[in-house]
């Protein structure tokens, strides 16, 4: 009798699970469709180009711009690695004084938008900058041409993107089982050699993950390169968008940029190889720290210089604008508060939406391997392949033609943010899922809890660090985001980022100070969630 009753409960419970699985799959398919729309639009537009468009495409310095764009992204990444990896090692593995503080200071430049950094570096290190003038006043002649063009863009972008590599590398160093290094030492390698031949190869997946973020940032940046007067593809697209009416040409440029991004993703995937993820060991072995000895002060000096340039200069510059502004101009507190509210509101909404989409998708894709899941996962990363400006243009086109009711609405802007930044959110939550011991939810099931209870009481609390980091990353990125906000924001909608851009575009630096200062402060808050126990014992 009892068996019979259970026969009836059983299949119902199963169909319930099937329904949940179906819901997850529906969300995943919707996201993939949304992500494919911009690609589709670019394709259609590009196919619609006539001979004159192709002529314009080839006449425009396409090839040389492509080369300079790629060399910029590559150089930014290489310099970033050179700065970030030794810094991460110093912070995580040595007896450097104040390691926790260094970890924060070196990660904070992530909160600085490239256009703010660009202005600061021009003012300090540019051809007529502070350093140039100081050197000119010296009795001896020291030639310093100042940074501009390629060198300027490279410098500015390196200073604000090395924290990506620093964060991923430091997190991996923190997790890495030190017994590998110990084994190398026992086998007779010196500490330098064991770092080069054992630790560094083990860190490669993490370094590559950070390098991917920084190279894609360099590729799609448009603030710093515009200020440094260095022509890249992203900038060319923006110029074309604001001056020309040939949308097919823009689509061709966009596709070219997408191709470069796909190439970078392919390189990253190859470099990462099989050692994609590593689980945390059962017991965290006590980490031994390397005594720096007489290298202590040089190390502190180097890190101080890095922090002072990458963080100190932009902050000082913004402070200078602000102080000069309040003395000479009237500061509209209400207006500023409104913009800050707009910034925080869209950033929070985008962060919540991105996490809301990323959780079901990662739940699905990390559960078991299937062709469908692999496809969803690959598709969800394709957001990386769409530079913000290309994505924004596609959405403008899509909304204007097919969904006019969301054109110029906040909804469209949030959709753009989610599509643009979802890969970072998925990456962060996915890593947490992969580090979650599958026996924990399984134990909960055998203790009589259904899927919903297991998810809310076991999985969610354990995924929380990954979810918080994902939300923080999206929040931070949206706070700084410029091209999509400029193109998709409703008329009259202004955020801190767009108002800084608007003021500085007309060379009004004093009024740009307060919003810039506020932006830096607000964007640094979520850094708290991105620095899990870094530098602490």
């Amino acid at each position: 009798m009892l068996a019979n009753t259970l026969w009836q409960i059983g299949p119902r419970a199963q169909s319930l699970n099937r329904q949940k699985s179906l819901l997850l799959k529906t969300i995943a398919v919707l996201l993939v469709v949304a992500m494919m729309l911009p690609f589709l639009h670019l394709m259609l537009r590009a196919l619609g180009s006539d001979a004159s468009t192709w002529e314009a495409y080839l006449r425009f310095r396409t090839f040389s711009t492509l080369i300079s764009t790629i060399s910029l992204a590559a150089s930014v990444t290489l310099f970033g690695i050179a700065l970030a990896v030794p810094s991460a090692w110093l912070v995580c593995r040595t007896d450097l004084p104040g390691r926790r503080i260094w970890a924060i200071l070196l990660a904070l430049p992530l909160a600085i938008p490239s256009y703010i950094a660009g202005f600061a570096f021009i003012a300090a290190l540019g051809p007529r900058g502070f350093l140039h003038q100081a050197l000119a006043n010296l009795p001896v002649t020291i030639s310093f041409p100042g940074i501009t063009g390629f060198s300027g863009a490279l410098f500015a972008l390196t200073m604000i993107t090395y924290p990506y590599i620093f964060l991923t590398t430091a997190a991996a160093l923190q997790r890495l089982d030190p017994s590998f290094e110990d084994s190398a030492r026992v086998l007779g390698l010196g500490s330098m050699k064991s770092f080069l031949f054992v630790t560094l190869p083990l860190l490669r997946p993490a370094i590559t993950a950070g390098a991917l973020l920084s190279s894609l940032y360099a590729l799609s940046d448009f603030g710093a390169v515009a200020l440094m007067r260095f022509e890249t593809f992203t900038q060319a697209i923006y110029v074309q968008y604001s001056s020309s009416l040939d949308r097919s040409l823009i689509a061709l440029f966009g596709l070219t940029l997408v191709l470069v991004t796909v190439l970078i993703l392919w390189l990253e995937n190859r470099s990462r190889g099989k050692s994609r993820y590593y689980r945390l060991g059962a017991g965290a072995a006590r980490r031994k720290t390397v005594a720096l000895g007489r290298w202590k002060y040089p190390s502190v000096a180097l890190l101080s210089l890095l922090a002072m340039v990458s963080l100190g200069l932009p902050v000082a510059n913004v402070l200078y604008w602000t102080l000069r502004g309040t003395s000479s101009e009237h500061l509209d507190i209400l207006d500023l508060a409104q913009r800050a509210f707009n910034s925080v509101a869209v950033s929070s909404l985008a962060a919540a939406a991105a996490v809301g989409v990323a959780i079901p998708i990662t739940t699905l894709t990390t559960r078991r391997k299937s062709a469908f899941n692999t496809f969803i996962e690959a598709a969800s990363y394709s957001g990386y392949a769409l530079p913000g400006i290309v994505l924004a243009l596609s959405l403008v086109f899509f909304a204007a033609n097919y969904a006019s009711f969301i054109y110029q609405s906040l909804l469209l802007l949030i959709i753009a943010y989610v599509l643009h930044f979802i890969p970072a959110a998925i990456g962060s939550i996915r890593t947490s899922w992969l580090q979650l011991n599958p026996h924990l939810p399984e134990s909960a099931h055998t203790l009589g809890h259904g899927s919903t209870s297991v998810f809310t009481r076991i999985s969610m609390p354990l995924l929380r660090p990954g979810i918080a980091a994902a939300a923080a990353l999206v929040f931070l990125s949206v706070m700084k985001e410029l091209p999509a906000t400029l193109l998709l924001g409703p008329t009259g909608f202004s955020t801190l980022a767009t108002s800084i851009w608007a003021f500085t575009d007309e060379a009004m630096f004093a009024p740009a100070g307060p919003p810039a200062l506020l932006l830096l402060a607000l964007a640094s808050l979520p850094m708290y969630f991105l620095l899990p126990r870094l530098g602490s014992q």
Partner: protein
Amino acid sequence: MSNPALSCKNLHKRFGNHSAVDSFNLNIAKGELLALVGPSGCGKTTVLRLIAGLERLDAGQIDIGAIEVANSSFSLPPEKRSAGMVFQDFSLFPHMSLSNNISFGLTEHKDTVTPSSNDHYLELVGLQGFGNRMPHELSGGEQQRGALARALAAQPEILLLDEPFSNLDVNLRSQVREEVTQIIRASQVTALLVTHDIEEAFSVADTIAVMMEGTVGQVGTAETLYSTPANEEIAHWLGAANFLDAYCDGTSAHCELGSVQLQRECHGRRRIMLRPEWLSLTPSSDGNSRIIHRTYYGHDQMLEIEMKSGPRLLVRALSADSIQLGQEVSVVATNPATTFPV
């Protein structure tokens, strides 16, 4: 006759092209502690996961008590089965105190829960006063007992233990093994323990099932399995064994060792099996063998001898016996041999 506490009928499970469980049959009586042993990769853990409902059957049927929980077309979800599981890594929820871990399983039986339930299970496993500790504040053995308390608190019909002692230090293992076995016996729960450690199975279980390549090769008590294994593979796997070709004529066999007693009457050409401790040797200048290798264990020693007629044999001797490498000895069988077909 009452139903067995667990019955597995003809279970099949494939992963891709690999057949993990193949025609697996097993019954466990109520209150019995059964150890499922087998080499790594033989499918033991998959069987546990099938019973717990963490994997789905391809074919066969599983009953827990009188309830059919799985067959090829239907699978009761794990939370609806009365099967508790203790994992190899203990899997205490790291974000909950030990008490909360234990009451996590109690919540589904609200009507029977009293405030003292939690303490009762803590006491059962000897962890009184540890309720407020977080899992990382417990030692390996304490985590092990905590996981056991959590599983028992849910009052399962059957308790499944997956290699529960393999994550413990060797010097801690036998002690924890003893404690855990006593707790299981005290709570009178039916238990199925999976292990690859034959010594562990021998010392803990009432009944042992030997699993080879996805199926049960033999079920029986430790003594039966050790002295009368079902085939040569199991004989090898359960401990060191000597095999000799022999000709049987009823109660004795004729082989290199001369005439050897047989456990069961048998006729014709056979292979006979003798465990190393079923042989005895005495130093003798014109013995039939010579010592070629010696491994000393303290309480006893294992000697490898080469018979003058060719075969090599393993002999277990007391460590007190003074024996030199290269010494000539004569070997005789002191226990009756098991026979296998040629």
